[in-house]
């Protein structure tokens, strides 16, 4: 029966990981760069949620959209100010893409961590929960009320995102730009606007993931480091740039981690990600659903 409990709890953590990783995969899909400040989108979401709910005294249900808005805004601003030189205008011709992206996003990550540390303080905050319910028992599964609600919201967001990308006009534009930026612009798609949109969505999802987990994780300025690392593992496992791969890989990692923590080692549960990363790079570098031919 422990196995069922672990499976469900792992699956739920997988949903939270998916919210983070999908945005990262979308960014890699269109720009072929990794955003090393992704964990800080998560952190900003968690802090916005906690501070809006506590300092303004509004209902946590209103703090949630505030966190989403903060994340989307941050994503769009980062894209406009820092990412645009990667693809727009003559300036992009002399830029070494990887160099620029790694240095700038890693710098941004440090900047955001230290800004929050300085302005809000280095101590962890405890966010207000969305529900008073602390224990929910479903058959053999024991759940925390907040976790259950957060999982429901995450699931709804992921399904919504999938529909948005598959069905809506903007979603199809995102797919087109990810496949071929030049081709998409020749077909009349505004690739620049689409890239902004992707960063906004990516920031929004990561921030919501942070906000939903805020009551469980007690955010401190460096809280984003481990979720970000897990999304990097997930994105490689799923296949760089594949949204569907990232979703599957996130659920898989969540479940594997839950079992690993109980049956192997709790202290080293975070090391499982590195192990998986190395195994994937050794044996299946294209990831679960990734395209082939990325090997040298």
């Amino acid at each position, binding site marked *: 029966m422990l196995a069922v409990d672990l499976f469900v709890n792992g699956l739920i953590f997988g949903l939270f990981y998916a919210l983070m990783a999908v945005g990262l995969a979308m960014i890699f899909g269109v720009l072929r760069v990794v955003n*090393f400040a992704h964990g800080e989108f998560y952190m900003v979401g968690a802090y916005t949620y906690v501070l809006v709910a506590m300092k303004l005294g509004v209902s946590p249900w209103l703090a949630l959209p505030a966190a989403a808005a903060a994340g989307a805004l941050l994503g769009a601003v980062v894209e406009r100010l820092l990412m645009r030189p990667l693809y727009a205008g003559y300036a992009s011709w002399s830029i070494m893409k*990887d160099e620029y992206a790694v240095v700038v996003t890693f710098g941004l*990550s*440090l*900047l955001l961590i230290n800004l929050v540390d*300085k302005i809000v303080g280095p101590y962890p905050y405890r966010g207000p929960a969305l529900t008073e319910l602390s224990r929910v028992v479903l058959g053999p599964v024991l759940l925390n009320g907040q976790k259950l609600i957060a999982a429901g919201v995450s699931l709804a967001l992921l399904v919504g995102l999938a529909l948005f990308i598959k069905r809506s006009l903007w979603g199809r534009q995102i797919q087109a730009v990810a496949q071929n930026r030049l081709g998409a612009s020749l077909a009349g798609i505004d690739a620049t606007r689409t890239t902004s949109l992707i960063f906004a969505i990516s920031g929004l999802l990561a921030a919501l993931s942070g906000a939903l987990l805020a009551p469980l994780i007690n955010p401190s300025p460096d809280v984003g480091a481990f979720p970000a690392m897990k999304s990097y593992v997930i994105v*490689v496992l799923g296949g760089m740039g594949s949204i569907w791969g990232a979703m599957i890989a996130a659920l898989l990692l969540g479940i594997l981690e839950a079992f690993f923590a109980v049956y192997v080692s709790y202290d*080293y549960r975070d090391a499982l990600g590195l192990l998986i990363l190395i195994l994937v790079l050794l044996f299946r*570098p294209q990831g679960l659903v990734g395209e082939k031919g990325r090997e040298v």
Partner: protein
Amino acid sequence: MTDARNLWARRLATDFRAALVVTGLLALAPLFVSSPYTLGIIIVSIYFALLALGWNLLAGFTGQFSLAPAAFAMLGGYTTALLGYHLKAPLAIGIPAAILVTALLGFVLGRIVLRLKGPYLALTTLSFAEIARVVVYNSNEFTRGDQGLNVASLMDSRVGYYYLFVVVLLAVLVGLYLLMRGRAGRFWLAIRDDETGAESRGINVVRYKTFAVALSSAICGLAGSLYGTFSQLVSPELGLLQQTGLVIAMVVIGGMGSLTGPIVGALLVYLTSEWLRGFGGIQLIVFSTLVIVVARFFRTGLWGLATQPRAAKAAGAAP
């Protein structure tokens, strides 16, 4: 072809001479600075200069991005410390062992990751750095966790330590110059500028990239090991990502892809950060902002700004 080659050789020679001048000035510093505290601060900035040179070898010369220089320094420090703590090994074994272990780790990591193109090295080294720190932190019975480990000291004199660090810096600098002037250096630059092109001309890209990672890790390991014997303590905090951030800031601000840039950057950033400490912990805010601004608008850093007019003249090109 030949012209371009000479131009690069001339630029590298100028760069090397400038770096020698900076190292020479450092060697003279104890004549003017007598306070052991200030000497200690300069020693730590030389430690960072070594890490910066190691990271720059990868990022600036080979175009590969590791996010683990601080982690390798931590592992180097712990190799020496653990050998002394558990096996009572003398530093004469402990320090070379640190170089060997970190080189080997870098080599294995490189072998696994560098077959692939793309951002895999940055992703893997980031995970590796965080996990290495967590493992050291959690292995209480083996590493004493966050209490850290004591390390034997090489000598009592602070000035002696100072000269040790200067001599090691000089040795690393000369070694890197010789490598960059030779075959390996040209191959690394070719890989940085056009990996596919380099491969098509018959360069064993994977081997040279792996060599760069192993060498860079070994430099960081040596620096960490020396730092451990200097401060007589190693702790998991040596491997914090913030430390890596500081190293990146030093290289980017000083000038990527040069020898002088990382050294000058390390001295400037570390000494400024000591000075900024008095203003309430804003060092990292200042430096991370500078990193973003420099990467966005002055890609070549201070060294580039200082030499660009001359380089343009030497090339005979207009802008």
